[in-house]
C-alpha cells in the first residue's frame, strides 16, 4: 500500500495499534460480523478508503468515504473454548467507525 503523508492524513489507526471492535447498535447492511464485536485485536494494515457499504446499500452514494483496516485476532480470544493452539489467528477487515483504541 502507498503510504504518502497525504494519504495518512485523517487516519485514526496505524499498523500495530491495539483496537477494540465496537458493538454499534446499527442494523441493516453492516459488514462487521457479531463474532468480533467487543473483541480486541491488532491493526495489520490500512486497506484504503471506500464508500461505506452501510450507506451504499440504501442508495446513499455521496459519501463520506471511510477508512478500512485489516485487524488480526487471537482465535482463543474470540472463542474462549477454541480448540487449537494459541498461535491460531483470524484476520478481518473493519471500517474505522467500528474501532476504538484499546
Amino acid at each position, binding site marked *: 500500500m502507498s503510504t504518502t503523508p497525504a494519504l495518512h492524513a485523517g487516519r485514526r489507526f496505524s499498523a500495530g495499534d491495539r483496537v477494540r471492535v465496537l458493538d454499534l*447498535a*446499527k*442494523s*441493516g447492511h453492516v*459488514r*462487521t*460480523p457479531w*463474532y468480533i464485536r467487543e473483541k480486541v485485536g491488532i491493526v495489520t494494515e490500512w*486497506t*484504503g478508503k*471506500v464508500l461505506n*457499504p452501510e450507506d451504499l446499500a*440504501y*442508495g*446513499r452514494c455521496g459519501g463520506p468515504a471511510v477508512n*478500512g483496516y*485489516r485487524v488480526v485476532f487471537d*482465535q482463543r480470544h*474470540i*472463542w474462549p473454548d*477454541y*480448540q*487449537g*493452539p494459541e*498461535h*491460531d*489467528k*483470524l*484476520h*478481518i*477487515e*473493519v*471500517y474505522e467507525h467500528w474501532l476504538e483504541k484499546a
Partner: protein
Amino acid sequence: MPHDHPHGHDHDHGHGHPEGFDPHAPAPDFGDERSRWFEVASDVMRDMLIEQNVIAAREVRKQIELMESKTIQLGGKLVARAWVDPAFREILLKDGKAAAASLGIPVTEASLTVVEDTPAVRNVIVCTLCSCYPRSLLGQPPAWYRNKAYRSRVVREPRKVLAEFGTVVPDDVEVHVHDSNADLRFIVLPMRPSGTEHMGEAELAAMVTRDSLIGVAPPRPA
C-alpha cells in the same frame, strides 16, 4: 416469523424509495426457505429493469456467460509464476491486482490480497457474511463455500474443517483464517510441493486447484 428478514427497522428511511414501495417491509413468509424470497425479489427486479429498458435480457445472459467462463486456470497461472519467479512473487504479495494485470489478467474486484502459506503458517479463506470471492479471477465459488456450515464453522473450528478436507495441520503450524467480510478479496499462495523441481511453469499451473487457492487443501503433484 414476522421479523425474520434481513433489514433493520431503526435506520433512516428518508432515502428516496418510490412511493408505495417499502423494501424494508417484512419479507413474505415462504416457510423455511428464506432464500427463496431473495430469488423471487431478484427475478422481479430483473424483469422490471428489462421492462423499463434499463438493461436488456441479452446483457444479463452475457454477464452470466462471462462469469461462468472464468476458471481457476488464471489463479493457477499467478501461483505458478510466483513459484518460479521471486520478483513476481513479491509483487503478487504486495498488490495482487497489479501482479495479475502484469500477466494480462484483469481483476475487476476492488483489490486482490494474496496470503502466503509458509512452513509455519497455513491460510484459509471464508466469507462469513455471504459468499465474497475473487470471481473475476476464479469464477464462481464452490457450493460448499456458500454453505452456512462452512461459513460458520471454518472461523470457529478451522482445524476440524480442514481435517474434513483431508488437511491435517500440525499444532506447531499456525492456522490463519481470513474473513473476506468487506472490500478485500483473497487467494492463498500455497507452498510449492516438493518433488516438483523439474516441472515447468505450465505443468505447475495445472497442479493448482481451486481448493488450494481457497486454502482448504494444498496442491499435490499428480
